[in-house]
């Protein structure tokens, strides 16, 4: 189960071993070609290898030991980048594997006709295609994702959600989706399979972390272009150094031209290998982090887009408020005791098993000490809610107590020749304006007062909205309530805007209008009627408890079915971009120190005066060049944890965020290599290696 097993540490031993092996497998030229920056290093390594062999068999351009050392570290640079990618993939795969293990291959009962009681044959679950209909009985595993077309059953979905309480799945409505790997506990279901093998969410996600099928996200492509441009600039700067150096030797009349080995070393140090080597690891790790949060993304593009979200649409019920309304106050008319109203309300609700009804009983007991009376001993007859009367209540000992919506009670009271006073109207209006639902209570044609049923806003939700606002995300509440009620709840929950009396069309229209303004819209949803809106939204998170239609329409599925998960999704998306940006800045800033190490060393024989630039006081030209190359390789390894974990995101506003990251990765990137290269140089000298 996900929440128990699949949290591998940053460096799980097994993953590391596998990754080590994969770093060598990734040396295949075809794999290397995918990463233009590292491909340059790859070619450079090949070149120096040839130069080394040449130095062994004939006249080398430098002592073979020096060329060997450079070659050795250049290959390490390539391997370290491979390793970073392999570790990220390994971790994501381990995560996926633990999800997949939930999907054991079971025998399915494939029905000949799509109805309960038809003949079935047993086939392997993996052979099922979209459209097949299967019977799943108590104790069976669900063989694949599908939609219930007949039956009601309790299903244990803990394998996917980690939630141990069973859930009800039934045909029609919003609870008709079943997920492969879950288990039916009671009764039976007839399910139409909705996915072909290999198309399930999990399979799509696994494909995303596997190198071959992984597609670059838009920002990744744009960044790669920038990195390629930088690489080309440095290629020009180093390649032209050879003729420049030859000319300088001619004109200065001393020294010898720069060695090709040194040129390759300089090139590799200058091109953005740090970000180039870690780029794909960052992307894979981002998807992996989503999985750790129990979110299955079906495209990397969606993960990345999450970081750009401007507007978040949230369903009111179940997301912002608890699912049910609760009685919060008894509001008697003038001349009627609060106790009397509470008593009548409780009596009328004793047999009302809806959560609202239960809450009336509980409120009367808590606030007015009215004990819950035993229904049978009262000798009462209960009037259940019906669609015609839209009231419920109780008849006992000559008392007729009714509770219901204001207009329903008005009809009832007027039928009994009673009056519906203006005061009630006012109370009802006040309650509605507070965002609550009024229930009017009447006894024998006389109105007693109003019960206020309150939408309970979830604890902590307001703080989350504040956080979203600081991230620059506008929250919009979607509700079927009237505008008055919606406004009150919106104010209490602290959302920025709301859409009242929402229909699927209105939701779709709202999303389109935001998109037309150029905003990126995220939405969470679970119902089938959310599907069009989910399909339209840029980032659509479907709840795992939602219908198959909703899941298909979304580009992410939240296994925990927690609508506020979007905050974490946004954070992960932002972290992915930030990590790339930070490492790019770091990579480029590093070049300054590398110039100071290599330029004086490379031209030491032609222009000894350039040694004035050797501000680090590196021991010899050879040690300076080698130190820079070693630093360049080791920094990739040193930054693997950061690439996998991601740069931390705090919603402090764009300017503050940029300032912090510029200080850490820009200024840090300028300073760190000076220290690093000097230390490596000292070490090389101390170990007598140069």
């Amino acid at each position: 189960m996900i929440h128990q097993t699949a949290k591998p540490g940053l460096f799980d031993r097994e993953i590391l071993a596998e990754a080590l092996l994969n770093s060598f497998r990734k040396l295949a030229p075809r794999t290397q070609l995918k990463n233009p920056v590292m491909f340059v290093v790859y070619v450079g390594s090949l070149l120096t290898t040839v130069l080394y062999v040449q130095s062994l068999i004939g006249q080398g351009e430098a002592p073979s030991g020096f060329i060997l050392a450079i070659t050795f570290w250049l290959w390490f640079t390539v391997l370290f980048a491979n390793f970073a990618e392999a570790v990220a993939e390994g971790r994501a795969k381990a995560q996926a594997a633990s999800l997949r293990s939930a999907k054991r291959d079971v025998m399915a009962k494939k029905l000949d006709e799509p109805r309960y009681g038809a003949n079935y044959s047993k086939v392997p679950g993996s052979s099922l295609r979209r459209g097949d209909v299967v019977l799943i009985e108590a104790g069976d595993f669900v063989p694949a994702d599908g939609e219930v077309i007949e039956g009601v059953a309790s299903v244990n979905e803990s394998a996917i959600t980690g939630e141990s309480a069973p859930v009800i799945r039934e045909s029609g409505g919003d609870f008709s989706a079943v997920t492969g790997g879950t288990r039916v506990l009671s009764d039976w279901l007839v399910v139409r399979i909705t996915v072909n093998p290999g198309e399930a969410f999990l399979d799509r996600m696994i494909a995303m972390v596997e190198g071959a099928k992984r597609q670059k996200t838009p920002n990744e492509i744009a960044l790669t272009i920038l990195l390629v441009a930088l690489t080309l600039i440095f290629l020009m700067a180093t390649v032209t150094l050879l003729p420049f150096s030859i000319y300088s030797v001619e004109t200065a009349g001393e020294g010898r031209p720069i060695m090709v080995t040194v040129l390759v070393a300089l090139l590799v140090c200058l091109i953005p290998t740090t970000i180039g080597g870690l780029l794909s690891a960052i992307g894979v790790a981002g998807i992996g982090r989503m999985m750790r949060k129990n979110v299955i993304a079906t495209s990397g593009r969606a993960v990345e887009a999450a970081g750009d979200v401007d507007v978040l649409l949230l369903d009111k019920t179940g997301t912002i408020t608890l699912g049910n309304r609760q009685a919060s106050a008894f509001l008697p008319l003038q001349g009627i005791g609060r106790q009397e109203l509470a008593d009548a309300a409780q009596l009328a609700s004793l047999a009302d098993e809806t959560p609202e009804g239960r809450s009336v009983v509980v409120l009367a007991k808590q606030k007015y000490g009215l004990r819950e009376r035993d229904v049978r001993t009262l000798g009462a007859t209960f009037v259940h809610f019906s669609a015609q009367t839209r009231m419920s209540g109780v008849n006992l000992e000559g008392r007729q107590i009714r509770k219901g919506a204001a207009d329903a009670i008005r009809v009832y009271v007027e039928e009994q020749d009673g009056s519906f006073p203006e005061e009630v109207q006012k109370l009802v209006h006040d309650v509605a304006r507070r965002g609550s639902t009024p229930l009017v209570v009447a006894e024998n044609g006389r109105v007693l007062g109003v019960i206020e049923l309150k939408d309970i806003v979830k604890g902590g939700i307001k703080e989350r909205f504040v956080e979203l606002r600081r991230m620059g995300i506008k929250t919009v509440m979607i509700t079927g309530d009237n505008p008055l009620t919606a406004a009150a709840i919106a104010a209490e929950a602290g959302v920025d805007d709301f859409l009242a009396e929402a229909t699927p069309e209105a939701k779709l229209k709202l999303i389109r209008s935001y998109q037309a303004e150029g905003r990126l819209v995220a939405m969470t949803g679970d119902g089938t009627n959310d599907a069009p809106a989910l399909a339209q939204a840029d980032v659509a998170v479907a709840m795992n408890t939602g219908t198959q239609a909703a899941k298909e329409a979304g580009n992410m599925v939240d296994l925990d079915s927690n609508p506020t998960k979007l905050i974490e999704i946004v954070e992960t998306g932002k972290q992915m971009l930030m990590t790339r940006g930070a490492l790019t800045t770091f990579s480029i800033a590093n070049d300054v120190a590398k110039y100071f190490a290599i330029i004086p060393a490379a031209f030491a024989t032609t222009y000894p005066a350039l040694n004035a630039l050797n501000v680090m006081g590196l021991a010899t030209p050879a040690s300076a060049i080698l130190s820079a190359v070693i630093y360049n390789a080791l920094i990739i390894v040193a930054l693997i944890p950061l690439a996998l974990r991601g740069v931390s995101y705090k919603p402090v506003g764009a300017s503050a965020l940029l300032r912090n990251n510029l200080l850490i990765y820009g200024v840090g990137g300028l300073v760190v290599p000076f220290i690093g290269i000097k230390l490596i140089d000292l070490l090389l000298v101390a170990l007598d290696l140069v």
Partner: protein
Amino acid sequence: MTANGLLQICGYLGVLLALAKPLGRYMAAVYEGRSATVRVLASVERFIYRITGIDPEAEMRWTGYASAFLVFNLLGVLAVYALQRCQGFLPLNPQGLPAVAPDSAFNTAISFATNTNWQGYGGETTLSHLTQMLGLTVQNFVSAASGMAVLVALIRGFVRRNADTLGNFWVDLTRSILHILLPLSFLLALLLIGQGVVQTFEPYRNVTLVEATGYDRPKQDDGGHPLVDADGNPVTGHVTVSEQTLALGPAASQVAIKQLGTNGGGFFSVNSAHPFENPTPFSNFLEMLAILVISGALCHTFGVMVGDTRQGWVILAAMTLIFVPLLFVTVLCEQGGNPAFAALGVDPAGGNMEGKETRFGIVNSALWATATTAASNGSVNAMHDSFTPLGGLVPMWLMQLGEVVFGGVGSGLYGMLVFAIVAVFVAGLMIGRTPEYLGKKIEAYEMKMAAIVILVPPLMVLGGTAVAVMLDAGKSSVFNPGAHGFSEILYAFSSAGNNNGSAFAGLAANTPFYNLMLGLAMWFSRYWLAVPVLAIAGALAAKNYVPPGAGTLPTHTPMFVGLLVGVVIIVGALTFIPALALGPIVEHLMMIGAR
């Protein structure tokens, strides 16, 4: 530095920045078609469109705009080439100058069409008045106006939403000339004539010197080889000079536009060091001001047109922040002089006056050198080749930065905006958001085009220099040995590869090799930048506007100024440090005696 020097610099910068607002606002009004001049001269514009068959209402896509720009510039190249080759048969040639050599004519034609104004020739000894006026002066106007038109198209790319057109190239070109360049040039030319800049069609005049002078000239044998005596010393004969030829011509009109249009091609060979081209300190001030005034003011034009003037001031601030420190480096290096002379007992307080005009002095020479290379002007009032190594490094590096610090009229700002796009991209990633600039998302296509814009100039500069130092044809033109000779070649390609046109001297560039190489460098770095910029404009115009939110990176803050400066400096430094190390840097280190 003296207080007087500081005062002159402050005065210059003060007037320059004060003019940015009114001129910038006026130019925005011109391009938006709502300035008073556009109304008053509407009939003139209509007449021009009618005789040229242009429909001023026709909107162009970026491809159409780019095609019009390219075709128009190509025609310009052909016209200037033809004029030079035929000038012998054409009027207004009082000196009877013959046709210009094909390679030189090719180089000059490209040079003036691309707003580079690299001059491999000496004006007064090569070109007729007709060629100067109909060829060069016309190109001075239209090449500058072309750059401004491309900039306006880019700005429209930011402003327009979900649009597929960028305006009309011919209208933008016409308005740039008619409402901006012509009136300003006319005003400046009058002021310059008032200072004594010549403006005449008369032939050159021979005058008798007040005091005859003389010099020793080496004697040559019949084969043109210098004669030496038995000790190996050259044999010389004394020559007395009592008469001088004064070159004249319609200089003021050309000088005005060469400065305002960041062209830089002087009427005379020594450019604005010539007393007839730049006679007084005041004419010097006016000409220096004219170098940067339009490029600076266009920043405000940009701000006005995108509807947020802060965006324009930020760009201007970034340019100024790069310009001022580098200016001080030049001034201080030139003021510091050469320690080798100090060792010989020369008073170091005199600074390095070699190659400078005494009527301008060190500060005004350094200021001109910095301004002319910051903008892609290239005119000179002192010889950069004679600057101290670091004093010469600054002009060279300012060109290598891509001519985006003020830069050419139009081209400087569009180049800087491309750097802004790159800065926004990196910064956007760092705050975890798909980067946006002025409400437009910056995506892979824009990055691709921006990459081309940033890549082409270094390719021309480094690639061209590499070819030159490998071939005898390139090496034989170098007058000075050692690192300084390398600087001379690098400077030439930095100038051509960034469309500046400034010459370091010390390099015989009027050879077929350099005429061809530098001509190609100028061609590629002008059009391979302008066309991708128009492609960016087209892509941006097609995008929807993303309204700013709390998560949007603000681009009107001091931090963005710092970021933009950082990107320009870092890219420029990382690209050229190795080459500079082998030229001016090592030269400086050797001068101060480092070993």
